[in-house]
């Protein structure tokens, strides 16, 4: 038998039974990420207070960041970190604009209840 074939066969055998590279598996981080995303979207759906809804959006963005970083570690590839960086920058812009809108609406309507913001409805 050709020697390089035997080498390849042992390499394949060792790769399937090798010990994991990281002590914390990828799934655990994904589970936390999914749970955080569910909490955030439940908050967006359930709460009628504009400030709490904005904070729930931040929770959802964080859940996505966690998933990006978990996959970045899994592939040994830094591009996920750059995406996380951009998400943080966009979250900062979103918070600034969102809070300015909340301030403006509160000045106008004396309330930040989302159910009362229906001026464009029908």
């Amino acid at each position, binding site marked *: 038998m050709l020697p390089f074939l035997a080498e390849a066969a042992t390499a394949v055998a060792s790769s399937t039974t090798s010990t994991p590279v990281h002590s*914390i598996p990828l799934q655990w981080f994904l589970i936390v990420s999914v749970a955080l995303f569910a909490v955030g979207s439940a908050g967006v759906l359930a709460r009628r207070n504009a400030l*709490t809804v904005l*904070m729930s959006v931040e929770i959802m963005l*964080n859940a996505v*960041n*966690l998933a990006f*970083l978990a996959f970045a570690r899994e592939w040994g590839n830094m591009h996920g970190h750059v995406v996380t960086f951009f998400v943080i920058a966009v*979250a900062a812009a979103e918070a600034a604009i969102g809070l300015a809108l909340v301030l403006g609406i509160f000045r106008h309507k004396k309330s930040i209840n989302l159910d009362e913001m229906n001026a464009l409805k029908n």
Partner: protein
Amino acid sequence: MGFEQIIFWLLAVGTIATSALVVLPPGGRNPLYGALLLIVSFFFISGLYVLLFAHTMAILQILVYAGAIMVLFTFVIMLLNLSKKELGDETKTLAKGLGIVAVVALGTKLVVMLQGQTLNLQAKPLPEGFGGVDAIADLLFHNYLVPFELTGLLLLVAVIGAIVLAKRTL
């Protein structure tokens, strides 16, 4: 269970518990409690980032999220100083209840699915300097230069927009 795994579960439970309290009554009733709990949650998440070898992102998470964004939230909440009436009643509609049930069911389903499965991705060993400032800066200023500059433009637009929206008269 190894030391790292114990730390992971402490951080994970802390993150989810504090985030849930932002949405559930203590935070949902009073936004100020929500904002403070969210800051605690961001610290827990940055601990998770450290476990993922994303040291720079962990620091940025604390600096930008806990330091800048949440301070802005706290400022606005204290500036508005809302009463119970101004916060508005939490209405309970059928659509809202169904939405929450759907979200919780989807979350549980995904968690169960991920638990039962071994994702056979064959993790690669991390390169030298993974997660450090050098590696991120290298990517940002070579591969992602245009998006990076556009982010700066986005922040400028956001600042101008916020001033225009929040000022009574320009």
